């Protein structure tokens, strides 16, 4: 078969993107777990783990540039490489948000939560599903799956709005809870951004397969 070496490299590229996605997914889960358990030691590790993700991003970018320079990819190959370049940027930002959550966890410290965290973990669950599904859509070039994930983003937005309402109500009754309250709002915002990035990734997947760039949200 022609271009066997090239096919191997493309395959390797896809694997690396998949691997990076999984690492980001795990990092977000770990960060959330550290938050919910108020595990300050675990939260302190998150940033270092994110460095590994950043390193992988640079590695993948280097491989993409090399393929573009030396292999003259066209059509499907070219769209795949272009999509990969954009996807890893979104993944890297998602990793950064996991770190941001860890920072907030450390700032809250051992202070008891001002309200039981229900919606925030739900948002994190949605994010996890979205990430998992979009990685599968990427691996299988599944456009339909990528489109469905957009629907989940709506749920995340709804939950985010609820968190905002609840926290603002609590702060309104007791101004002293403002400090932690605002931090909780930040966490909700980070999770919402994570979901948005995942939606971007799905848009890239649709482009990769169809050559058409369509905004989902």
């Amino acid at each position, binding site marked *: 078969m022609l271009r066997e070496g090239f096919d191997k490299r493309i395959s390797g590229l896809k694997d690396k993107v998949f691997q990076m996605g999984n690492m980001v997914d795990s990092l977000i889960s770990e960060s959330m777990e550290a938050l919910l358990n108020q595990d300050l030691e675990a939260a302190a590790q998150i940033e270092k783990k994110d460095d590994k993700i950043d390193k992988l991003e640079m590695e993948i970018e280097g491989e993409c540039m090399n393929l573009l320079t030396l292999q003259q990819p*066209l059509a499907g*190959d070219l769209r795949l490489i272009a999509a990969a370049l954009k996807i890893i940027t979104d993944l890297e930002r998602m990793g950064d948000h996991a770190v941001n959550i860890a920072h907030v966890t450390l700032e809250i410290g051992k202070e008891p939560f001002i309200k039981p965290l229900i919606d925030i973990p739900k948002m994190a669950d949605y994010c996890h599903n979205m990430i998992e599904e979009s990685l599968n859509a990427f691996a299988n070039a599944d456009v339909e799956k990528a489109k469905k994930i957009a629907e989940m983003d709506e749920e995340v937005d709804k939950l985010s709005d609820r968190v905002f309402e609840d926290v603002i109500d609590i702060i309104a009754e007791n101004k002293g809870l403002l400090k932690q309250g605002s931090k909780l709002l930040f966490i909700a915002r980070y999770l919402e951004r994570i979901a948005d990035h995942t939606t971007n990734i799905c848009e890239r997947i649709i482009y990769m397969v169809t*050559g058409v760039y369509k905004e989902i949200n």
Partner: protein
Amino acid sequence: MGVRIKIENLDFYYGKFKALKNINMNIYDKKITAFIGPSGCGKSTLLRTLNRMNDFVDGVKIDGKVLFDGIDIYNGDLDPVELRRKVGMVFQRPNPFPKTIYENIVFGLKNNGVKDKKILDDVVERTLKGVYLYDEVKNKINKSALDLSGGQQQRLCIARAIAMQPEVILMDEPTSALDPISTAKIEELLLELKKDYTIIIVTHSMQQAARISDYTAFFLSGEVIEFDETSKIFSVPRDKRTEDYITGRFG
């Protein structure tokens, strides 16, 4: 956008062998159209059909129509010699006549009765400037064309073709025998020329087709598999065979 040449249901036979099958294509005015595809799949055959150069081969048969500005070039009143004045051709290997640079350029005009030296001098200067060759050869216009380098000879052949003021220029792999710099110069030249001429170029280099053409036709076994804007063919081809060919997975 004007259609300069319209090919309708064209079949082409070399004896019993059907080299072109049911070709339907529009060639658009003042655009560069590229023909790509593996060797022996009919690109050059179709090109030569457009200026009736295939007439010189024994045993060829044509069914269907080729319309140049609406006139059927095979069954109409158009004399093939007249057609070739309007549809010029540049070949794969530069083929200047063993004469001086000046004589090469005016050869076609002289044979069409143009005798006025002032007109001929003008044409020589205009065409040499038009192919960016004037500065390089202005001091040796009366020296033999065979003394020029390959890239210069090919530009001379292009000048010779445009001296006849054709409407369409056909190019059969014009840079495949040249080095990268000469190739780049000629590609740059073609982008300039398309302001005044409709150009069709057969090329084995997909990068070349991607760089300079507006439309691309992909040929396979005598058929046109896909014809579209170049940017679409190379980023989102519709036919799998096209995708396999341009990504080099053909086999």
